């Protein structure tokens, strides 16, 4: 479904990604794990077209998207829920959700998805008129995911959805990710919380300073000694 071939991306003159190869099949949950500054967010932003790779190609459903603009990429169904949520704090919860459906014209389906996200996140429903910035951290994360789902993703890129959340919230966010995947959305999940991520993922990639160090089935990564030591704290 998505394939990154030899992708290199840089900030100014500094390379943040060095010939990264990633492949994601339909219906999979794939996770990217790595330390702070390894380049995980850079990978997602390069896929989304926020950053343009200096080298390499990205194919989504057979189409080359590596030099396309973000709005085009979103319209193809590649949707990112960015790190730190990035909801619009001054806009209301409802406006934030509506923005997710910005490119869509299919009124009836939009309404159906709207009902879907409000049943997925009933807490948001009670807070439609509230400014996004007044939500708690966990609620903001729900809003960010809800907003992403309103874009009708085929592939959902999630950047550290558990960041800064209490353990009980982390659980429910991961449950929801599984649920979204069951409904047919392919997931690329970036996480610091490696154990959780690997427990729901089919496959995982380990990134270190801008390149892929290891790629394997999630089960195998969970039992791999070097991974256990570096990322699972055992």
């Amino acid at each position, binding site marked *: 479904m998505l394939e990154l071939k030899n992708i290199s991306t840089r900030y100014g003159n500094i390379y943040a990604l060095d010939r990264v190869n990633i492949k994601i099949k339909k219906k999979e949950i794939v996770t990217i794990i790595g330390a702070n500054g390894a380049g995980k967010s850079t990978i997602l932003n390069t896929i*989304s*077209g*926020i950053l343009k790779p200096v080298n390499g190609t990205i194919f989504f459903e057979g189409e080359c998207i590596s030099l396309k*603009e*973000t*709005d085009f990429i*979103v*319209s193809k169904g590649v*949707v*990112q829920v*960015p790190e730190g949520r*990035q*909801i*619009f*704090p*001054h*806009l209301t919860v409802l*406006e934030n959700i*509506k*923005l*997710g459906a*910005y*490119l869509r014209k299919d009124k009836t389906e939009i309404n159906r998805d709207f009902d879907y996200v409000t049943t997925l996140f009933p807490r948001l429903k009670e807070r439609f008129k509230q400014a996004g*910035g007044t939500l708690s951290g966990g609620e903001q994360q729900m809003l960010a995911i809800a*907003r992403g789902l309103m*874009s009708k993703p085929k592939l959902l890129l999630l950047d550290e959805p558990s960041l800064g959340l209490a353990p009980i919230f982390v659980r429910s966010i991961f449950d929801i990710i599984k649920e979204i995947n069951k409904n047919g959305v392919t997931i690329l999940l970036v996480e610091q919380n490696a154990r959780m991520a690997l427990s729901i993922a089919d496959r995982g990639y380990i990134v270190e300073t801008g390149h892929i160090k290891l790629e394997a089935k999630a089960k195998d990564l969970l039992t791999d000694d070097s991974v256990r030591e570096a990322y699972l704290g055992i």
Partner: protein
Amino acid sequence: MFETIVHQLLNGLIVGSIYALIALGYTMVYGILRLINFAHGEIFVVGAFAGLLATMIFGDSFIIAIIFASITSVLLGLFVERVAYRPLRDSKTSTIVFSAVGLFAIVFVAFLSQNTIFDLLTSILFWLGVLFLVAIILWLVRSKSYLKSRSSNSRINALISAIAMGIVISNMIALIKGPDREVYPKLIPEVMFNVFGITVSLLQLFIISFSFVLMVILYIVVNKTKVGLAMRAVSYNLVAAKLMGINPDKIISFTFAIGSLLAAIAGVLVGTYYNIVDINVGMMYGLKAFIAAVLGGIGSIPGAVIGGVILGVVEVMGVAFISPSYRDAIAFGILIFILIVKPTGLFGSNTKEKI
């Protein structure tokens, strides 16, 4: 005495409405790009002249003048955005090449339009003065608020580009038009009303109510429509807006178009109110409207309206009750005062964006 005060209040409201219409263009562009569009005052003048031209061709019709002025100014506004600002957002363009071309355009046009080298120098010196003033204002505003978000380098480039655009257009007008004033036809029938012993003209009522209606429409567009929602999203967080599938270039063009439209309408209103247009008024109105926008809190739409009205009323009152020669001094006095007391303006947010 009471009658004079009401009269002057009415005058102030009219001048204020005009300032507000122009100030809205500054404030919306600033809100979305954190850029002062220095060509905006000129876009206003071009609107006034385009309206005049329309009356020469099609006869004295207010509606035709407005339509013609609007189309011309909107096209010019879109052109300015495309040529002077977008290339700077686009990392692929080399800044040096861009600046060189811009500089060449300024010198070339300025040279053609001025009679002597001396005129050319004064014109350039004037704009340098404006640049300096604005740099100080931006610095003051920035120290309190949210300007820090983008690299200061590209911001300064954009500022220079903006001012260059202002110079080019004002000299272009001078080149095409010659530096004369022109008589502007009366486009609204001269009817007087007597309200509680105070005479008001239809034109006065019209300017105030028309401006009011435009502002209400603008409010609805920004707050109740999809494109307005996208405008707000882009102005709060560009990257997040892109991730929603918004194409910021389209939204920015739309913003320039609306600002230019309002400026064009203001241009025609000023022309028919004073029965005269002068290419130099563009600069002055532009500057005053900019002050109004800063007074209200640049980036804030209600701020631009309130700032415009306050500035208009205070200015007219000052002229009437103190001395006509203080007109411009009052405006700049207000500017200095607000910058010292509250650099973010009346409605400017002091809070940093959380994003």
